[in-house]
């Protein structure tokens, strides 16, 4: 087991290194200058553009830039090119903003999708199955921002309450309980929207996986033993249908970084995804690369986690 961990970590570190190199190269392939440099502003003389480039190390050869960038990143010294703020500090603040959205969204997705999928599988071809299939495909095929606008219009027009941002603007002086509930309310719509598509996709997977195991002999055996239907479905069948989801579960971690750019932008939610998007528009390389690095670490952690979960869930798999 420890041997597996060490070997796996070593391999993953190597992959991480490759990821840093590739992402660094890709970002420098993209044309453009950091947002502080405006090439068509008459006030920017060519000498000043040159000085900016020097300050951002853009005049050095790529390998040197690479080393300088990751040295700064690991020593916590890299600063955003947009506003000179330390990158890690910026990301930390946004991470805390994104976390509740991510947590609630993930929780709703990874709970509700299972009963929905299982029920649809059991009543295959029935009204419930066809109904959920219809809604799932509607949710999957229509873009998320469309629903977001509809939902905002609906809520604002009927309830006349604010929905944008993380809290009602100008509500800072209200009593603590009000403020807490206010924050919960602002969390509701983006979290629901974020999880809707997830539930739609995941419940379809659950359905098809369940369909595969539901006619297996051991399910019939369990039924024959006289176990209640719920135990048969949720214990005997689900456990065996669960394996592919372990891989998917490992991959939800990186969703923390870029999961909901559109939702965050529409709802003015100051989260990580929106920051990444704006950093890309502003060619804020330090922020983009740091987020990219964090996302890569999360992906690798996620795969490691799913490997371990596999071993725990499936006795046929032994880590060596």
């Amino acid at each position, binding site marked *: 087991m420890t041997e597996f961990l060490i070997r796996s970590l070593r391999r993953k570190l190597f992959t991480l290194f490759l990821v840093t190199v590739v992402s660094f190269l890709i970002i420098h392939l993209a044309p453009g200058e950091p947002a502080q440099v405006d090439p068509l502003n008459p006030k920017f003389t060519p000498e000043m553009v040159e000085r900016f480039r020097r*300050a951002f190390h853009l005049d050095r050869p790529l390998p040197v830039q690479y080393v300088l960038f990751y040295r700064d990143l690991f020593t916590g010294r890299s*600063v955003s090119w947009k506003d000179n703020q330390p990158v890690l500090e910026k990301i930390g603040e946004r991470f805390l903003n994104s976390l509740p959205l991510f947590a609630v969204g993930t*929780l709703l997705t990874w709970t509700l999708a299972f009963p929905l999928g299982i029920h649809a599988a059991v009543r295959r071809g029935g009204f419930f199955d066809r109904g959920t299939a219809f809604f799932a495909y509607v949710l999957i095929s229509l873009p998320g921002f469309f629903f977001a606008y509809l939902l905002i*219009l609906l809520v604002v027009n009927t309830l*006349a*309450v604010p929905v944008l941002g993380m809290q009602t603007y100008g509500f800072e002086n209200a009593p603590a309980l009000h403020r807490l509930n206010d924050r919960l309310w602002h969390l509701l719509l983006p*979290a629901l929207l974020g999880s809707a598509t997830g539930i739609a996709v995941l419940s379809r997977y659950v359905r098809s996986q369940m369909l595969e195991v539901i006619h297996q002999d051991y399910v019939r055996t369990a039924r024959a033993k006289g176990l209640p239907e719920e135990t048969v479905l949720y214990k005997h069948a689900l456990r065996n249908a669960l394996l592919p989801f372990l891989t998917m579960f490992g991959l939800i971690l990186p969703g923390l970084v870029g999961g909901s750019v559109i939702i965050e932008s529409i709802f*003015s939610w100051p989260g990580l995804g929106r920051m990444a998007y704006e950093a890309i528009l502003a*060619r804020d390389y330090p922020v983009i690369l740091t987020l990219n690095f964090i996302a890569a670490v999360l992906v690798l952690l996620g795969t490691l986690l799913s490997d371990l979960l596999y071993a725990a869930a499936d006795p046929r798999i032994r880590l060596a």
Partner: protein
Amino acid sequence: MGTRRILIGLPLAVSALLLQSVFWVPTYEEQARGNPARLEEFIQASIGDAAVLNPILSSDAASAEIEQLVFEGLLDRDEHLRLRGKLAESWSVREEAFFHVPAGQGGQANEAVRVAALLRERRARPEGLPPAVQAAVANIEEIAIEPPRRETREITDASGQPLRLHLSVPPRIRLLLARVDPELFAHLEAVLGEGYFLRFRPEEHLEAERPLPEEEKRRIAGEALPPVEHNPVIEFRLRPGLTFHDGRPLTAEDVRFTWQAVMDPRNLSPRASDFEPVKEVRLPDPLTAVVVYKRLHAPALASWTLGILPRHLLDETALRAEAIASGKDPAAFGIRQSRFNRRPVGCGPFAFREWKSDRHIRLERFAGYFEGPPEYRRFSFRVIPDLLTQEMEFYAGTIDAYAVQPHQVARLAGDPRFQHFSGTSFAYTYIGYNLRRPPFDDPRVRRALGLAVPVDRIIEAVLYGQAERTSGPFPRQTPFYNPEVEPLPHDPEAARRLLEEAGWRPGPEGLLEKDGRRLRFTLITNSGNDVRKSILTIVQDAWKRLGVEVRTDLVEWAVFIRERIHRLDFDAVVLGWSMGVEPDLHPIWHSSQTGPHQLNFIGYGHPEADALITRIREEYDPERQIALCRKLHARIAADQPVTFLYAGRWTAVLDRRIVIRERRGDEIRHRPIEPTATGNYRYHFNRWVKLAERPVFAVE
């Protein structure tokens, strides 16, 4: 069994918890109307967050908007866009002019005495001189002789090597002028003799450490000892009793510090080019700042609209303390690193309170503002990155102003709850031709192409009428714009005749040809701008009707700039320029700026235009500057180096309850908001106030 219950129960419980919160949230009604504090707050929505709240560092529009409220400059512009005093109570522009005398009979010392005496005499008895020269001589307030001196200077030569120079500076005549006179030396030649100033030989007074080629020596000498020198001097008298938001007094020291901060190479200030011509800032007393310039540079005056920084928070000592307190290396810690940029302190009408990234910036009115505190108690800047949600927030009353689109204004045009404004923006859109490439080197072809473009149809169909035609490089609402220059009419027939005159005749397929070559080129613009894309199509169609073979292409912005514009690799482009008030066209239209990476990428150059551009830069008299600008406008329009299309219109919407409050003693009156003559509806922002009830004005 639990699994199912958990899987269904947990999310339902969470959702229920979240849903019940709706009962705790204040409705818009409660927030916007039931809340009297809301009336005292102005909330501005913005697509993007500010980047750096420091006027010497920022270059984005969002930061500028906040800085305008937090900081104050020595000057700003009044409703007619003329400069007026802000922190400066008054200012005067004078000039110190210097010239070296040539070695006449009896050496330079005697020559200097002779010339000074001659000038004094001519000033006392100017009879017989031409009137312009008389005026120039009368403008001289003081004539003095600077004694000779020796000086050693370190410079870098053409190859970048350090070089030590020994100068024996001969005596120099110093003239103090009541006002700046760019033509002083031309006029003085009428007194001293034709070509007098050219007779001084700087290279005779210079010894370099190592021998230099004659050419190089003359160049270096000319730079070290210019025969004539204009030093415009601006003297600012500050208002007494000014304080920053933290209560510390604002003095001339802070003015000088702001200049130094801009020029400090560590700060990489994007404003450096404005302040580079400053030679020194003298402080004769705490309320006087005397700015001496190295050369004539008329845009200099307007650059003092820059917000003044508090020296006590940003000088070496303060930065050092901050670096040490935050555990950073003091040597690498400059203004760019300081926390000041996230919580600025200025002396403007609003003081900074709070900045939550990508959420909001809060300001609070500054009770000690020298013009009296603004009527609004608070100013908030909310970041809402989506235009549609901005509109909804506006309707709900939780923002007061946002970047309203013309079609959104149309939606509430008849609504009595709102008032709306529109005006011409300071930007124009044009078709630029690469004048280095045929056929664009022929002005007749450019004019013909311009005549064929149906600009009015573009304005109608693409911009829904939200634009105005423009005929030249200055913003329409400034006095520099020449109203006598008419925009090109839409006249395809005249275009055809002009092209024929230029030798382009229809070939067998109806396409224009000259010497067996077709009139063929590519028109490009950046992708992501739907308006420009539509223009591209309309123009292509119009030109095809003439028999021009036009291909079009859309290029991603960054590639467009780097590969096409900066490398001068294009035939024709659709682009726009965003202008300031200052009429300095040097970077965009002067023939010296046509290289790669420079802004005159179309390659325009005309000796008369160059001369005018330089003169405009040197003209300190507003009336004369306007006359020169109008001449330049006519010159450029005559050449048609670009086809000027239109200047867009901006739109704005406000609640009708927002009015201007006027206080005269104890009497308070309200009047509706009216844009100034130049279209600025926010000009009186500090006196804006939101009433609880919609006001009824007699005039309405």
